[in-house]
């Protein structure tokens, strides 16, 4: 039994269980060092971009955990993002609870909502587009609730007064948020890196590749899908708190809209769905591009988004497996090429 399972897993997981390559490690180290020293060398404007990249990459990793690895395609991560943002912000403004604790409360709240969504969807065996639509509907419901509930400050949203006190998750200057964002991104990336080496991670991938086969081999698919969803929801809530503390204002039309969910998906598809570093690569590409178009087409409202949308469409058509997928394809081609015309395999 376990032998068959192992065999199936090996096939399902394929190449994704290999270690990192040397150029990969070098690139990662260089990027990390660059971000660490960036507050000393970059202007506030550029630091803002770095923080956005870190935040979006983190958000994308959260989506990647559940949709990339476990194959449960969410189009409603805005729900968890918004719940995190609202929980910590309201606890702070109404009760004076520090956002460090509010962040944990937000994680708990998102976990609870995530498990409700999960139990409902997975018990009724929703898959693919149907599951995506349910998550989208839930995010919309939270938007309507937030917009119409006076207790949640309705449409005007929650504003946080700036205090410059790190115990309240407010830092002087951008450096604090650069480091906070870097730590979050490093933690979730490490989490995914380790996860895909564990049995749980392998089960996630098996479920993504063929859920029926996974169930037939004795994997409790319901339990693992729930695990992926709830973890993803909890981590996403942290991104919400981060956003609220950085921009100091949230409202339903900022945190609960489908653009947030799209923000979480784009870097993954661009970089490579279900890969450890794909979402980071994706965020490093899409955010500067988006910033560039914003600046260059500032005189013509809408032109920036036309360019952005076109790039998105072209990338999805040209690179269906993302940058990582492209790199793999090139590597495989090289590996298959015989060294000399006479060289034979296995000799």
């Amino acid at each position: 039994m376990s032998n068959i399972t192992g065999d199936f897993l090996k096939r399902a997981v394929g190449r994704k269980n290999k270690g990192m390559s040397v150029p990969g490690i070098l690139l990662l180290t260089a990027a990390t060092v660059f971000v660490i020293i960036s507050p000393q060398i970059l202007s506030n404007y550029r630091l803002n971009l770095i923080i956005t990249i870190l935040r979006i990459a983190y958000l994308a990793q959260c989506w990647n955990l559940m949709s990339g690895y476990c194959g449960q395609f969410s189009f409603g991560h805005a729900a968890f993002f918004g719940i995190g943002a609202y929980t910590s912000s309201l606890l702070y403004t109404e009760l004076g609870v520090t956002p460090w604790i509010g962040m944990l409360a937000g994680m708990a709240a998102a976990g609870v909502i995530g498990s409700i969504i999960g139990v409902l969807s997975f018990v009724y065996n929703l898959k693919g587009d149907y599951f995506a639509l349910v998550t989208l509907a839930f995010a919309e419901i939270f938007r309507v609730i937030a917009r119409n509930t006076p207790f949640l400050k309705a449409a005007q949203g929650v504003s946080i007064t700036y205090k410059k006190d790190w115990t309240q998750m407010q830092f002087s200057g951008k450096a604090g948020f650069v480091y906070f964002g870097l730590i979050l991104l490093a933690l979730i990336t490490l989490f995914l890196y380790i996860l895909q080496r564990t049995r749980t991670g392998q089960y996630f991938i098996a479920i993504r590749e063929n859920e029926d086969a996974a169930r037939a081999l004795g994997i409790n698919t319901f339990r693992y899908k729930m695990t992926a969803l709830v973890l993803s929801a909890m981590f996403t809530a942290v991104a919400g708190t981060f956003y609220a503390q950085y921009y100091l204002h949230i409202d339903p039309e900022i945190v609960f809209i489908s653009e947030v969910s799209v923000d979480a998906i784009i870097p993954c598809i661009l970089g490579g769905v279900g890969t450890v570093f794909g979402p980071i690569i994706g965020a490093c590409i899409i955010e500067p591009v988006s910033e560039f178009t914003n600046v260059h087409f500032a005189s013509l409202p809408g032109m920036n988004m036309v360019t952005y949308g076109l790039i998105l469409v072209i990338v999805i058509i040209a690179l269906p497996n993302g940058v990582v997928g492209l790199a793999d394809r090139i590597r495989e081609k090289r590996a298959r090429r015989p060294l000399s015309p006479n060289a034979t395999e296995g000799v």
Partner: protein
Amino acid sequence: MAIPILQSLFDGILMGGVYALAALGVSLIFGVMKITNFAHGALITVGMFVTYELYAALHVNPYVSLPIVIAFMFALGFVIQRVTINPIINAPSHNQLLLTQGLSIVLENLLLVMFTANYKSITLKGFDQAINIGGIAINKPKLIAFGIVVAASFFVYILLNRTDTGHAISATSVQREGATLMGIRVERINAIAFGIGVACAGVAGTLLAPMQYISPTVGEGFQLKCFIIAVFGGLGNIWGAVAAGLIIGVVESMASLALGGSWSEMVIYLIFILVLLFKPTGLFGRKTR
């Protein structure tokens, strides 16, 4: 007391008809290509703008412009399918969904670039006064829209069930590989089906244009409703979409009478979730998906 309820019932039915036509497009596209078209709302808006431009520049009555809109939107849909959808027809669904979302971003913002964000509206002489029947006011553009929706639904039904192209579309939606083996040019059929779906969105846009203000993002509000109706009616089922459109129209207008405009959305989303959970095959769907 009864008058407001009857009034909402009528408004709901008339509006529901327009939703139904737009949703029919979503349903057809999903039925044939298994793609949830997140650009549908933006395509409704494109229909509205084509209608508006014909009205503003050439003084063409919106109802007269319908054939032009249908032809333009069909061609637009055909080209969009050929250029963007066809290459990803077998890709994972998150790629497909994000691609249509990208198309939506492009279309909406192209409209913004071309026509600015200023609100536009069409006022038709002789159409702005409501017909009064026993205290119930019936908005003329809505009534005309309903008539056109009924005609359009029959037209699509006949197109799909009584023509060779229609049979080829049905065959493709049942089994793509099988259809290919039977000599059906599946790629072309997919493009035609997408064109018809987009034309439905365009006609809905034309019908909505005299009823409300026009701006590049106005279609977003209709998009999720289209999904809800398409799923509720059973994806790929035309009369299901029509029935579901009328139901959702009435529910929406009743809910907004009872709960106020902004909470009424909530009722619709809750129905959507319940339908997805308990009856994802829709009103008349079979037991299994």
